[in-house]
């Protein structure tokens, strides 16, 4: 168990702003925020998800740049009221220097912009797949 994650952490120091690595070893965003859920039966909150991408980062940047980033996120996102991209803590494999997860980044909502850039810009340049 010590392998997976430390038993006691300060989330700001040990979890926030760390790099997320997917099951293929690819960088998949940063831990921009955490979702805490207070259990139905009461008691202290538990970390239930990692929030990543502009929707999550915006709130931490404070007034102006945050609002700008948030509006950009809302405008570019297909759904009406998009929340931040959410990665359930259940898919976390390891918390160390990096946060490793057991799914592929292509299945994550946080990769939306990346996919767009790949499809419409970078993928169209010769040699992009070599």
């Amino acid at each position, binding site marked *: *168990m010590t392998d997976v994650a430390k038993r006691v952490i300060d*989330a*700001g120091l040990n979890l926030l702003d760390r790099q997320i690595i997917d099951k293929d070893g690819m960088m998949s965003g940063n831990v921009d925020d955490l*979702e*805490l859920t207070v259990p139905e039966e009461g008691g202290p909150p*538990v*970390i239930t998800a990692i929030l990543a991408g502009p929707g999550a980062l915006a709130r931490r940047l404070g007034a102006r740049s945050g609002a700008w980033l948030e509006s950009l996120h809302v405008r570019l996102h297909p759904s009406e009221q998009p929340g931040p991209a959410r990665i*359930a803590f259940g898919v976390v494999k390891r918390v160390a220097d990096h946060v490793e997860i057991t799914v592929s980044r292509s299945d994550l909502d946080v990769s939306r912009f990346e996919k767009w850039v790949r499809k419409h810009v970078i993928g169209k340049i010769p040699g992009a797949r070599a």
Partner: protein
Amino acid sequence: MSVRDLAGTQIRFSDLLRMLVLDVESQEVGRVHDARFVKDGPVQGAFGPGYRLQGLVVGTGSFGARLGFDRASVKGPWPLKAMFRRLHANAKFVDWSQIDSIDGERIRLNVPAASLRPVEPLPS
């Protein structure tokens, strides 16, 4: 909102950070700098037991709180270490059970500030 009424709700960690903490006599204790979690909460899928909030690290002067001089095993350089240690010397640990209510930007405690313990270093 009283802590009891929070059951089933969600909080963003970033909202928790920087919240103002007042003790039972409405004395200002400081702001939330960090939160300590223990891996013994409800099971989160393959991750196993989830991280359960144990308590908050509360202090005055947020500058450099993230640097970790006060908690991690950072060794030096000593002038920096001494400076930031001093800056955060008055940091307090607020156990979850000592929280009475969380309202917007404020956290109210059910104990006086004087009864709060100092922050223990993280076990390595």
